[in-house]
């Protein structure tokens, strides 16, 4: 049986807009417009889409904050709308931009509160805390007030807080936003372990395709409240014809580089931008360039999710 089941879930809001001095207009907005999908226990799923597509409305319904206007929804065996507190014990939630830790208190205090609010048995609490502390390298930070933690440390602290009660599902909203490369790597590594070893089902929303590439075996794309893609990442790249960008700094300004499998999209003095298909490895392109041009520096940029999706729509519109 699937852990998360949605069947034709809809959610609309009434929005009042002021049209004149005193006149107001009521409008129905369909934030989620007929979602149907299942997520099996132990899966790691990326949930992406442009802002305002219905992502956060979906998450709010899955966590029991919002009640669907219509449709069937079950998470971990309960109906989130009717059994909010029972559900709360079975899920963990982390918002990238909003910490649930206590700002002025040592990190440990937030965990102690979680132990009591979630009524976690002592032995389990200690085991889980020890595991999180070890994997997230929080050992030296437990007695530090949260306000003194760096963004990356705080995110790791938040992850631990969300997992102390052994949730079956972990919802993550932009878990790597604003983090440096090292912190991002640590967070991803930890999530992979939680998913593979603990079997925790993970559903994450993100704007960072690397999160999805490294963590998720399945991607769902939502737009205007409907699923427009549900499959693996390669499929998304194929549909979206997405491209990665190789940025090269040459020793001097040169005419556009000519190599097979990539095309120059921009030149600015000694710096040139080359686009190549996202499914392809960067290595042959780099090798070809290095062979014939005086390279000073280079970097590879991942395609932005927005671009991938935009291209996908453009294709759907043409096809």
């Amino acid at each position, binding site marked *: 049986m699937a852990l998360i089941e949605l069947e034709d879930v809809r959610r609309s809001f009434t929005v009042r807009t002021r049209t004149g001095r005193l006149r107001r207009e009521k409008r129905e907005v369909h934030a989620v417009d007929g979602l149907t999908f299942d997520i099996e226990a132990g899966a790691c799923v990326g949930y992406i889409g442009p802002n305002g597509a219905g992502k956060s409305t979906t998450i709010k319904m899955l*966590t*029991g904050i919002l009640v669907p206007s219509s449709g069937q929804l079950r998470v971990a065996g309960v109906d989130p*709308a009717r059994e909010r507190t029972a559900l*709360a014990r079975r899920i963990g939630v982390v*918002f990238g931009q909003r910490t649930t830790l206590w700002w002025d208190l040592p990190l440990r205090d937030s965990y102690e509160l979680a132990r009591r*609010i979630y009524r976690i048995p002592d032995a389990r609490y200690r085991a889980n805390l020890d595991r999180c502390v070890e994997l997230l390298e929080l050992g030296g930070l437990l007695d530090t*007030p949260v306000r003194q933690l760096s963004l990356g440390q705080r995110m790791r602290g938040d992850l631990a807080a969300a997992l102390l009660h052994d949730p079956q599902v972990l919802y993550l909203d932009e878990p790597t936003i604003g983090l440096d490369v090292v912190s991002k790597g640590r967070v991803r590594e930890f999530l992979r372990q939680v998913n593979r070893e603990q079997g925790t089902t993970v559903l994450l929303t993100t704007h960072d395709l690397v999160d999805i590439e490294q963590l998720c075996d399945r991607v769902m794309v939502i737009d205007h409240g409907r699923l427009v893609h549900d499959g693996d990442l390669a499929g998304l790249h194929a549909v979206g014809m997405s491209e990665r960008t190789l940025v090269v700094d040459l020793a001097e300004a040169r005419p556009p580089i000519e190599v097979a499998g990539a095309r120059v999209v921009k030149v600015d003095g000694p710096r040139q931008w080359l686009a190549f298909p996202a499914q392809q490895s960067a290595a042959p392109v780099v090798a070809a360039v290095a062979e014939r041009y005086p390279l000073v520096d280079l970097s590879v940029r991942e395609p932005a999710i927005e671009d991938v999706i935009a291209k996908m729509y453009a294709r759907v519109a043409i096809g």
Partner: protein
Amino acid sequence: MADTVTGAGAETLLERARWSVRAWWLMAGMWTRAVMSYRASFVLMLGANIMITSLDFFVVVLMFQHTDRLGGWTLPELGFLYGTSGIALGMANLFVGSTDALGARIRAGTLDTMLIRPAPALAQLCAERFSLRRLGRPVQAAAVLAWSLTALDVAWTWDRVLLVPVLLLCGTVIFSALFIGFATLQFWWGEAKEIQNSFTYGGATLLHYPPTIFAKELVAGVVFGIPLAFVNWLPALRILDRPDPLGLPAAFQYASPVAAALCAYVAGLLWRAGLRAYRGTGS
């Protein structure tokens, strides 16, 4: 009802109430420790708080520099009204006063965070940003009440003695219900925080003065409408042996527990309706 069904099966109302109180206690404890990490600021704010609340009574004292009686009542009698009303409002503010920022909590997303914890959202909201500096008002009001009790000339029969703690308890419940009930307006009307002030702080100010100085319609309004009169006016008539300006049956003077229960019930209904509207269940 959406929120009463839990995974643990049928939780009794009593268990639920105990869990609410415990959740409140845990959260309020966390906030207290957080505030105490800025100790100097806390002491300063507590002092300022006591000064602000004292100002109201100081003005009453100044009024009595120019007269012996206000509406036929003496200064110790006003002290009794002031003390009881201040304690009730102050304790209610201490326990549930944080609900006044509901609109802001909704806008900041804090309410959503509360809804994903396995504890009653109302208990969490009441404990949010809890601060012991709110003790300023009840402490100052208690001092005034203590003074008035020594200065009053009352024949302390057993029912009068008993009425004092009962009215303090019921007054706290009534003001708590007003805080919560009017806070729920912010589910629909996010910036309407001040409406609540009219009935809580405004109500307490009304109760500082004897009922005899107000228009009868207004007095009737706070007996049968928003039942502020049960906080201290009606029981005080009995304790201080004063005639009722409305000439109501004497039973009203003992009826504060009934009024308090009714207020709590209505506030509970309003909160549920508000939360349902927010989550999008009803309508």
